[in-house]
């Protein structure tokens, strides 16, 4: 028999009461915020709703992959298109940034461990300088100080004669124009990639069973390259190239790169990509260095005493173990890079924050819906990353003894 006052000493009862109070506080807080919002919205004559997504948008977006994929036209495209364009452009710069930062970061991380003083200290200076200067400042530096000092729109710096050039309006590269049959080449390429992987696993299996080795990597590269080239020529070269056209004669206003030829990459994209890549690479370099240092020296020594050469030791002994340490923080750097791509709003690269939560929000004025939609994109991405990390951690745990 328990008196009511003894409930106080009951741990479970106390925690139950506390949790109920917590939920009540939460519900009350949500209700308070919600009712305030409704009152404020009513005072401003606004309503909630997603009807604006089907309205046509009235502003120009710089030509990028997003506008090209969505065939964006002022006056006929909707705000939903703007949203999708923002997402595409965000992930375009994030994906290319991740590729660049990974390559540069791994290079710098390994260079920091070099026995060669010149190489080691170069990487150290790189990491310390880039890590300790705010990303936004680096972005401004690339955009306002470097790319703005390029030749104006009537001039250019030629990179490859007739094929690539850069000026203040952007970087101009040849653009592939797929003709009839290009799809088959694409399919063939994918098939050859799969075949290369299949050869790799076959060679591994054979080596385990018979001890015979097979140069699977080079075979795979050869199959992908020559196979695709063969199909390409058999199909009658179904990809045309559109080269950028630069005029430096004729009427002054017609000089410069001609619109509609080649592929133009806007300077905002270059600045964001450069800044994200260089900044994140500094962090990745530190992660890689720490990961390799975390592997006990005995592993290297044991491998050497078995007569395995340094390069092979690195590839077969050190890196597989280091990756287990490297990949979790590396994933969170990828996540950071994706989130940091939102800084592009400062130089008006047309990504999600800039065009949807910036320009479109100013036109439509649906703060809650639009900022909510923007957050959902980032949240989804970070939850997916977290899910991957959990999966990966579970996987490497099994490998552990």
């Amino acid at each position, binding site marked *: 028999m328990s008196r009511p*006052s003894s409930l*106080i*000493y009951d741990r479970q009862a106390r*925690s139950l009461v*506390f*949790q109920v109070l*917590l*939920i009540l506080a*939460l519900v009350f807080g949500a209700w308070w*915020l919600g009712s*305030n*919002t409704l*009152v*404020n*919205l009513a*005072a401003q004559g606004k309503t909630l709703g997603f009807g604006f997504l089907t309205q046509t948008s009235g502003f120009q977006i710089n030509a990028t992959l997003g506008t090209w994929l969505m065939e964006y036209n002022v006056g006929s495209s909707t705000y939903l298109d703007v949203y999708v364009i923002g997402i595409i452009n965000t992930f375009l710069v994030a994906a290319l940034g991740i590729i660049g930062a990974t390559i540069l970061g791994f290079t710098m991380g390994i260079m920091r461990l*070099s*026995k*060669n*003083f*010149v*190489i080691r200290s*170069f990487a150290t*200076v790189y990491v*310390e*300088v880039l*890590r*300790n*200067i*705010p*990303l*936004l*400042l680096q972005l*401004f*530096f690339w955009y*306002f*100080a470097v790319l*703005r*000092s390029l030749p104006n729109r009537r001039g250019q710096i030629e990179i490859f004669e007739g094929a690539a050039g850069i000026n203040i309006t952007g970087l101009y590269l040849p653009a592939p124009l797929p003709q009839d049959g290009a799809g088959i080449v694409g399919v063939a390429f994918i098939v050859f990639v799969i075949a290369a992987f299949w050869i790799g696993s076959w060679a591994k299996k054979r080596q385990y069973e018979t001890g015979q080795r097979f140069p699977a990597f080079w075979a795979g590269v050869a199959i992908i390259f020559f196979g695709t080239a063969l199909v390409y020529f058999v199909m009658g070269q179904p990809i045309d190239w559109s080269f950028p056209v630069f005029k430096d004669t004729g009427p002054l206003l017609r000089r410069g790169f001609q619109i509609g030829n080649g592929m133009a990459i806007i300077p905002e994209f270059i600045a964001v990509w450069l800044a994200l890549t260089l900044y994140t690479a500094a962090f990745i370099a530190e992660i890689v260095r720490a990961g390799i240092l975390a592997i006990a020296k005995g592993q290297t020594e044991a491998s050497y005493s078995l007569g395995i050469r340094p390069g092979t030791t690195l590839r077969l002994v050190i890196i597989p173990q280091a990756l287990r340490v490297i990949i979790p923080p590396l994933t969170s750097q990828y996540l950071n890079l994706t*989130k*940091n791509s*939102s*800084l592009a*709003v*400062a130089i008006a690269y047309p990504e999600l*924050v800039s065009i949807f*939560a910036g320009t479109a*929000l100013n036109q439509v004025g649906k*703060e*809650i819906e639009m*900022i909510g939609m*923007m*957050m959902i994109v*980032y*949240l989804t*991405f*970070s*939850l997916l990353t*977290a899910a991957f990390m959990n999966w990966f951690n579970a996987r490497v745990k099994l490998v552990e003894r």
Partner: protein
Amino acid sequence: MANARDKNYEFVRREDAPILPPPATEAGITGWLWQNIFVSMADYTSIGAGIRSLLMAILSVLILYFGGTQIYALIDFTIFSAVFSDPEGIKREACWTVDQGGVLPSGWHGACWPFVVAKQKFLLYGAYPAEDLWRVNLTGLVGLVGMVWVMIEKLPYRREVGAAMLTLYPLMAFILLTGGNSDAEFSNIGIWLVIGLAIISAGRLGKRGFLGPTFAEFATLIGFTGWVFLIFNAVRGVAAVDFGLEPIDTRDWGGLLITLVVAITGIVASLPLGIILALGRRSEMPVARLLSTIFIEFWRGIPLITVLFMASVMLPLFMPEGVNFDNLLRALIGVMLFSAAYMAEVIRGGLQAIDKGQYEGAQAMGLSYWQTMRLVILPQALTHVIPGIVNTFIGLFKDTTLVSIVGIFDLLGAAQSTIADPSWSSHVQALSVYVYVALLFFVFCFGMSRYSIYMENKLSKSRSH
């Protein structure tokens, strides 16, 4: 048996061999150079090793060239080619080349320091009134002295100074920077103070058992509530006192001042919230755990810039009519919630590192949950994560630059707006001020990261025995 030496054989050495100097490859400057640079490019015993050595040599030369030119370019830009003074007061023309109408040689490229000097006050304080700058300087000086005092281990009263830095200093900084004299009614504050005192005394009475057993159980909680009331209103009261300082609107603040205010307030305010969230995430109560986890993952999942957008656009919608925050306060709230989530994860790392025996030991001593945390777990966990906290602070310090996107002139925002000044316009205007700001940020962040590494080494040493 006779020794070989005694027999006087001609081929037996009688003196010690002379001590030779170590090989040139092992000691001294040449040894260092050999081992750190040339050994990696001197192996030509096989074709593969030869190719590797050659590649290493080429790479070293390329990097030396590239790194050298970059460093020289920076030194040349900031020192050798830079314009240091503008004695005639001709502003932008002091940094113009002959082609642009100035006096510098064609193709000149160097820093325009007179421009940065002229904008110095704006970059450091924004539009803060010039005659009141002593207030900012005093705040900064006291903060610096206090911080250094806490960081140097040999000084006495470090604990007391630290406590003052966390309690009295923010109040002082607030009054000095804003001017205090808020328009709260003293009678109103007085009533709340009396209520606070009443609650505390009720708690005291309850503790002695005068008000029944049920009440006694909650005495601590009641006393705590009373103290919160008391302190909160005491702070309000002090802030409402007229010290004769000119009130200065936060719209006039700017530059480094804003950067430091946002970063330091963000980190200090996020500590208590971060501790609560970290404890919540490790709590045994499912609701508390779930809510903390959702909160943390939500803020960590979105970029800071969207948080600032939300704070500046949505926060006014969430508040009841008539409540209006100024721009800086909105950004501060956003930064605080954002960094609390990161802080919570750092602290959770510290909590997880505490041995289970510590919890069990505390329980065996009969300590309650809060006593365990306050007296046993948190002191250890927080010391563990000092490097992590410093790293979070560095990150936040750099991220503070984002407030310039929502229209607050922090150091970078101020720099960006000086570039728009046509009276100093030249082709090196942007670069000069960027280099200056980058240098400031680098000095702050690099210094702090060194301190964090130093702490890490010290802590790992003290942990290992």
